[in-house]
């Protein structure tokens, strides 16, 4: 659906019509009274060595999509293929092997490290259970990983509370790299950091991509960050991808009114230029348990027409590699 590349090799990651719905249980008997449509029919793909940015407001389902791809959250339907192999139906043992290929970096550097265990020990444990190395060899590999992410080898023995936010995020990256994955899902990896530290961590991500040929699914809500690291950008709104394009294309010629509004919301460092008032979004994102009919964005769209309220727009390729779901395009 969202395929924009014609390369003969299977993409590293291929997500086809993925849905992840969470039941809402109420009452004494935990009756299912509704669903949260966190991810509702998402199709994306990602080539080797590429960074795909995933942007959207809080509550748009970005993190759930990331966790679904890792199968940390069980998808409701749809298919996920890693290097052409469907992982949605894999049992526990096969999934264990597959875990080596995809790893995750978390948003909150404070809750992502166990306060009671030396940071290097968790990484060594991962190496051990996957049969990569154990004992002294594993310790040496952990030290090497720490050096690679810009920490000192001796810091493998420290506890999480002895690190700063940026260092913690580096530890999180070292942990993700331990199994030598091809794809890293970075769930807002820099949004909790100071701006100066953000730049360092982003540079680390980019250096690692150069050295190791990693692919990233880079989840963020800060468009400035996304602009720096991503090759392509997918915009998500209420559980659906509404626009995908190359970075430059998306920033130059955004098609979807929501994307236009997002770009208009980037602060311009010049007080003379006022943001276009009609492009600034009003209101909040609707509840994902009761998404609007038709185009999901019509409740906030400045350009909404009658058919937007009733008819769901198809996701189509406007220009090569630029997909958008809007009746106006």
């Amino acid at each position, binding site marked *: 659906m969202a395929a924009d590349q014609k390369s003969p090799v299977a993409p590293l990651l291929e997500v086809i019509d993925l849905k992840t719905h969470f039941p809402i249980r109420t009452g004494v008997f935990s009756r299912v009274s509704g669903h949260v449509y966190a991810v509702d029919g998402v199709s994306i793909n990602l080539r080797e060595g590429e960074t795909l940015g995933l942007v959207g407001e809080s509550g748009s389902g970005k993190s759930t999509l990331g966790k679904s791809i890792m199968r940390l959250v069980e998808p409701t339907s749809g298919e996920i293929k890693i290097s052409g192999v469907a992982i949605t139906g894999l049992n526990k043992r096969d999934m264990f092997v597959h875990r080596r290929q995809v790893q995750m970096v978390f948003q909150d550097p404070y809750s992502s490290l*166990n306060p009671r265990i030396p940071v290097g020990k968790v990484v060594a444990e991962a190496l051990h259970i996957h049969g990569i190395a154990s004992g002294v060899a594993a310790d040496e590999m952990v030290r090497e990983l720490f050096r690679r992410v810009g920490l000192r080898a001796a810091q493998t023995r420290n506890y999480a509370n002895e690190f700063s936010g940026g260092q913690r995020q580096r530890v999180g990256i070292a942990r993700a790299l331990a199994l030598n994955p091809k794809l890293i899902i970075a769930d807002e990896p820099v949004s909790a950091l100071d701006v100066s530290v953000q730049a360092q961590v982003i540079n680390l991500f980019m250096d690692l991509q150069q050295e190791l040929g990693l692919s990233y699914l880079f989840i963020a809500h800060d468009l400035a960050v996304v602009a720096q690291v991503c090759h392509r950008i997918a915009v998500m709104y209420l559980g659906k991808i509404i626009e995908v394009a190359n970075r430059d294309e998306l920033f130059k010629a955004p098609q979807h009114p929501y994307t236009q509004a997002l770009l208009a919301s980037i602060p311009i460092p010049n007080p003379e230029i006022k943001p276009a008032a009609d492009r600034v979004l009003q209101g909040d994102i609707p509840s994902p348990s009761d998404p609007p009919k038709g185009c999901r964005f019509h409740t906030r769209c400045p350009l909404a027409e009658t058919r937007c309220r009733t008819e769901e727009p198809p996701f189509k390729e406007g220009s090569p590699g630029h997909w958008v779901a809007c009746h106006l395009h």
Partner: protein
Amino acid sequence: MSDLTRSDRPFEEKYKSSWSLAAESFRRFLILPLNQISFAITALLLFVALFAPWIAPFPFEQVNPSNGLDPPSWQHLMGTDQAGRDVFSRVLYGTQTSLLIGVVTVVCGMILGVFIGAVSGYFGGWVDEIVMRVVEVFMSVPGIILALALVSVLGPSLPSIILALSIRRITQFARVVRGSVLSVKSQDYITACHALGMNNLRIVFGHVLPNCLSPIIVLASVLLGNVILTESTLSFLGMGIQEPTPSWGTMIAKGNEFLTFAPWISLFPGGFLFLTMIAFNLLGDGVRDHLDPRGGSVL
């Protein structure tokens, strides 16, 4: 503190062991005078319990009807009871009984309760529902009534008293650990363990439970005093430790009828019980404050 933050130590050094962390934590615990007092009394009681046979001047069951109800003297520091037994020796042996029951009960309750609570909280679903309903049934019965009922069914012996007292501790530990596990398991570092492909057993015991240590330790120290008091109550009511084995509760009960003219028979075991309760409650409070994350202490 300085060696905690320095990280340029030689590679050969192993991971900082949890023992050295615990020792560090313990040193900081003893800074407060109140903690020093409670710890000193606890240590003294432990010492007395362990070395009672060597400290006690008389065997606890040695009767001497000719000098019954003797007031405290240099020979009998706490006087003698109606059968002429040395109250001091019996109080010392009573410490042994109380601490034995306290420690064994709390340890049994802790092992089973932590296991049940961890499984219940971690796996959730219907297992959790069933376990928690059972726990609530036990919690709805007053502790002493439950213990009395169980002992009267099983008969008043040491194992049955420990069993009767343990069951409630199991439910108490299970509840606390479950709550703690519920909050820890949703942390990102646990999600990361799943992402790395660790199995549930490894995650629960290696990564979740170490983070539930503080509430477990606090509950254990609070319950220790609690159990000793309940045991004394049972013994006082005649459903606990039976004569001639010394127990503070039994001694207080037996001395009851001589209270007006030989108060020492009840007074000294009562005083020891009082002291023990104060010490364990202070200890529990101290440990709780010490381990409160807002106090900035680890472990």
